[in-house]
């Protein structure tokens, strides 16, 4: 018995994958060769070892991470689906500021000369701004009509969620990754109707986010008014230091202007 059979061939024989001729040859060899019989037995043993390996238990933080992601997914669905009326949970800082601008501009329009179609002009302008409000899109081109709207151009488009998620120290990495997945992609997401200011974030939050953006030199992509270790906190997603990453800050409290003490910061991949 000089010509032993390779283990792979023996494994294929066991699976019935060999043609009739090879099957006959290998079977005959196995019949006489103790060493190859041992290999066949060991191959069956590999399967038994795999089968006997205890299944790993699902860690709590992984289960929670899944729940968080799906809750956020459900919120998105509620916003964009037929029940869009329940959309107040997700608002946009940008739209809140637009609303304020629209009031200011409407007043200005009335005070100056714009007559008749003035409101439509303002509304068209706002509409245009919405189309350009993807997180990465510079809005300078919109500035013509809006006068000194520098704040809009640099701080626009930071959607704010209120998931109420209780972020935890142990689960932060997974939770932060889930939050980063909520960052709107390049395409502008449907904005809440102008006029639904009920869910808009407080101006203090807008100020705080602008503060963070200025100090870090990063873009604020998303904020979530939530909890951290049981206490109120704002989670802020910034563009990362390197491509393909995002940074998530945990800011305790309500994130008022000047109050950007960061409790924790994690960098997560962004794809």
């Amino acid at each position: 018995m000089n010509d032993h059979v390779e283990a792979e061939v023996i494994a294929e024989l066991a699976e019935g994958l060999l043609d009739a001729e090879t099957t006959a040859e290998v079977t005959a060899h196995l019949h006489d060769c103790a060493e190859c019989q041992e290999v066949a037995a060991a191959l069956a043993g590999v399967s038994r070892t795999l089968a006997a390996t205890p299944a790993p238990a699902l860690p709590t933080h992984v289960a929670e991470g899944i729940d968080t992601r799906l809750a956020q997914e459900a919120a998105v669905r509620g916003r964009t689906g037929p029940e869009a009326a329940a959309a107040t949970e997700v608002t946009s800082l940008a739209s809140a500021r637009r609303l304020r601008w629209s009031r200011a501009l409407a007043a200005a329009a009335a005070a100056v000369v714009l007559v008749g179609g003035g409101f439509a002009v303002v509304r068209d302008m706002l509409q245009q701004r919405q189309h350009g409000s993807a997180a990465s899109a510079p809005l300078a081109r919109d500035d013509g009509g809006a006068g000194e709207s520098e704040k809009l151009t640099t701080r626009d488009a930071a959607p704010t969620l209120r998931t109420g998620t209780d972020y935890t120290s142990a689960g932060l990495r997974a939770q932060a990754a889930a939050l980063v997945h909520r960052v709107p992609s390049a395409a502008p997401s449907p904005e809440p109707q102008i006029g639904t200011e009920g869910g808009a974030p407080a101006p203090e939050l807008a100020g705080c986010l602008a503060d963070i953006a200025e100090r870090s030199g990063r873009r604020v992509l998303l904020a979530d008014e939530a909890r951290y270790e049981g206490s109120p906190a704002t989670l802020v997603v910034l563009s990362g230091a390197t491509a393909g990453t995002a940074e998530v800050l945990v800011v305790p409290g309500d994130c008022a202007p000047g109050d950007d003490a960061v409790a924790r910061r994690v960098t997560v991949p962004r794809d």
Partner: protein
Amino acid sequence: MSALVDTVTETSEIPDKELLARHAKGDDTAFGELVRRHRERMWAVALRTMGDADEAADALQDAFVSAFRAADRFRGDAAVTTWLHRIVVNACLDRMRRRAVRPAVPMGDDATLDVVARGQDPHGGIDPTGASDAAMDVAAALATLPVEQRAALVLVDMMGYPVDEVARILEVAVGTVKSRCARGRARLLPHLGHLRNQGTAGNVQGREGGAGRP
């Protein structure tokens, strides 16, 4: 975990398909119930396939989100569990292929070196009765396989699913599943042969994958 069919009878009488249909119609609780039914099993599949807990957690989250979004595209001619497994396995394979620019050994060098070292030492310090040691060894050994062989062995040998079911999950022919399993087992022989039976360990582990034996 013997069969995929068991799942319907568990916590509730509502069949998986019905839950998925309710979810597609806007029922906010249906998908959560579906996830609770299957997440333990899906975790086992993801972790064993990927070998890394963080990566597996990310893949599993991605998979459930995909399923959440794609529920209305579910075709009723397959079992929901088959469909869910397919999404989970694909999420894992996608991640591992994206990572493939990194060194060829997905588990990291330590784990593999560990296996190699043990394989070369007849008294490799393995306690065959220690379940966690054995599990660790299995994970490290699986990490040495190409991802397609690993996925097939996880589903067939570890999860115990029938070959034709695994073929549907992986969307390949039954023969392909068998062939991946056969080649995978042969490659695992030097790593896991000794776990089966300490008595023959010395003989079995000397054969590197069965290739080129005299």
